[in-house]
């Protein structure tokens, strides 16, 4: 019997994530920390394994060091396999042609040989910048039932935000008659989630056609999907209902973290049906002495100060008299005695000096207009000196 996989997932993880500013200065967006002990890529990888997909290609390009190390051999997601499993696919030098990934479609095109090793009937295309739990197997079942060539996962978004997304215009049976990438005048509020299932043979065909087209931007949303539609291939929408958040901006990343808080949160990580796996760090339980209200605290923390409405990542230290409010601390960060952190996102390994202040009360700061809507951002590994002040809405990428 020939060994093959029914469905192979390809995870696009090469994006720079420029709208996360200092948070992606030297790591790829999918490796950005989320929810105190996770990284964004934990969500699509966990969804894959929870949906029975055990072969995943992770396409990396921008600053892949931390991402590569994090994914490793895939063991935290049970994706260490003798046949299949997770594989990091970086751009490579070929005999005739050497190039970086020129777009989402080109990235997959350059790795068709990887997909063909598993001879799958279907290929699932995922992106590494969304927080959600989804059963891809149900989507695959819908794809098969409809006899589709391509199925696009979509969900309803507020009409005023629809022009930020790829919008699907569909018939009552769910088939797609028009696909518009970021339309100025959207005709519907069904937004593409960037999750596609292709029948493998059709994917190969249209990627090859797209590759030959000199005018193409080599992008799924802009080129490949419209080309398939124009050629009359059977394209269907798949409606997803549940929590889904694009965490591509500072404010959406902050919101998604806050959506985890409370006994009945908007997005629940506590359900044991679909566990989100991660490379759980090895740390003792959190030591808590201070005041912790409506917050999330990961293992390894030493909390002697005050934490309110915040998400505190692994191995953070919050000293006596320090206060962290409405903020996200990604991990390994020290907030020294008397320091105040408000309405901020603090990347890993930051030191905040004694009696310094970072950000401002959410009520005032959120009125500031700017790139981050008043959220203060401190990049990885930097130090804020004792008694220093970082004003609300600043994006800091070097020591203060």
């Amino acid at each position: 019997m020939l060994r093959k996989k029914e469905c192979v997932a390809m995870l696009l993880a090469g994006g720079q994530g420029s709208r996360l500013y200092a948070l992606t200065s030297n790591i790829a967006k999918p490796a950005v920390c989320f929810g105190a002990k996770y990284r964004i890529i934990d969500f699509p990888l966990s969804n894959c394994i929870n949906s029975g997909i055990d072969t995943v290609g992770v396409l990396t390009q921008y600053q892949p060091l931390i991402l590569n190390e994090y994914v490793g051999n895939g063991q935290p997601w049970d994706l260490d396999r003798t046949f299949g499993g997770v594989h990091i696919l970086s751009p490579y030098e070929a005999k005739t042609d050497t190039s970086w990934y020129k777009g989402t479609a080109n990235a997959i095109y350059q790795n068709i040989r990887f997909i063909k090793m598993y001879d799958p009937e279907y290929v699932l295309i995922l992106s590494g910048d969304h927080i959600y739990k989804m059963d891809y197997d149900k989507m695959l079942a819908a794809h098969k039932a409809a006899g589709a060539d391509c199925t696009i996962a979509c969900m309803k978004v507020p009409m005023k935000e629809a022009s930020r997304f790829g919008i699907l215009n569909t018939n009552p049976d769910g088939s797609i008659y028009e696909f518009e990438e970021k339309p100025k005048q959207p005709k519907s509020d069904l937004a593409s989630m960037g999750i596609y299932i292709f029948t493998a043979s059709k994917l190969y065909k249209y990627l090859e056609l797209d590759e030959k087209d000199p005018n193409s931007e080599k992008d799924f949303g802009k080129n490949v999907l419209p080309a398939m539609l124009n050629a009359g291939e059977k394209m269907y929408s798949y409606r997803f209902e549940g929590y889904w958040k694009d965490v591509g901006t500072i404010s959406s990343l902050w919101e998604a973290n806050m959506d985890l808080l409370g006994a009945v949160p908007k997005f629940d990580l506590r359900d044991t049906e679909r566990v989100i796996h991660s490379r759980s760090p090895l740390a003792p339980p959190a030591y808590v002495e201070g005041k912790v209200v409506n917050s999330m605290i990961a293992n390894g923390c030493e909390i002697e100060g005050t934490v309110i409405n915040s998400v505190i990542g692994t191995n953070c230290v919050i000293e006596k008299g320090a206060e962290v409010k409405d903020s996200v601390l990604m991990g390994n960060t020290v907030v020294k005695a008397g320091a105040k952190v408000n309405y901020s996102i603090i990347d890993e390994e930051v030191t905040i000096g004694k009696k310094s202040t970072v950000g401002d009360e959410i009520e005032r700061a959120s009125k500031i207009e700017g790139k981050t809507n008043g959220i203060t951002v401190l990049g990885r590994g930097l130090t804020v000196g004792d008694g220093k002040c970082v004003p609300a809405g600043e994006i800091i990428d070097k020591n203060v």
Partner: protein
Amino acid sequence: MASTVGVIFSSTNDENVPELTKVRSKGSIPYGGRYRLVDFALSCMVNSGITTVGMITKNNYQSLMDHLGSGKEWDLARKEGGLILLPPYSDESEMLYRNRLEGLKGSSAFLKKCKEDFVVVADSDAVYKLDYSKVIEQHVKTNADLTLVYHEHECGDVNSYMMFNTDDNDQILSIDVNQPSKGVRKHYINVFVARTSYLLNLIQTAIARGYSSFSGDVLVPAAKGGNIYGYKYEGYYQNIDSLQSYFKANMDLLNKDIRKELFGNRDIYTKVNDAPPAKFTDNAKVVNSLIHDGCLIEGTVENCILFRGVKVGKGAVLKNCIIMSENFIGDDCNLAYVVSDKDVAIGNGTTLAGCAQKPYFINKGTHI
């Protein structure tokens, strides 16, 4: 470090803590919010550069095997060496091993195959952090036949099993076994080092002579005029020989210095479980406690150790408790000095209390 193999007894004197060993062996007693006792000996061996460890099991070792798995959390899932389980091995004459000597005999086939020159044998009955490579170093330097590790502390109410009398160079002159004693003494902590060939010889001779006790029949006579040295371990040490000492060992972790000594380097390895971070609601009040990932705190928690996935209901008050994983504590409960084993559910409004000398123990899986 000289090439060394490790051997760990996962089950010794289990009867001392009948509550906790009812469903498991000594080595897999949960400790400190996420660990098992065996993690200390095993992690320290790995950190000392040992890459082959034989784990002697006796009975009730399902929980231990579940914990250890392939040994990958300790980097011991290897092609060469790694973690090797040594379940009871019986020939026609015997069933389970009855004592340490027979346990060691059961592992001699494993030891014979090992190429390593030295062997460290350790129990998993205590919380401590020992660099075994230092013991080996001393062992090689003194050219001893055996090096036995001791810890100096005040004698307790319970007679310590073995205490050493040594000269200034830590050569052991005699060993007191099970003798009532007072003051600070050198207590054996059930860790010794020998040349592999020497240990194999020792076991073979002892079995041939029909000896039954490794310490009484082998170590004590050997100490008289023999070439046996003590190694002084100076770090934190707490033997788990009663529910009371178990309680103390856990509560010691609320001391910052002890916590730092044991876990500061993050090099005590254990099985990883993907629980979401601990969550504190608006009504949570937590003082001087250890809280593991997966907990949901809606009540008051003071001086407690909470393992993974403990849910503390609204208005519940927990003081000086050790609550193991997946416990459900209902609303308005009032618990003091309670040690609750895994998977326990306590209904709303329940009051339970023990004291430090005699904590109130709740069996695994109980519903109250």
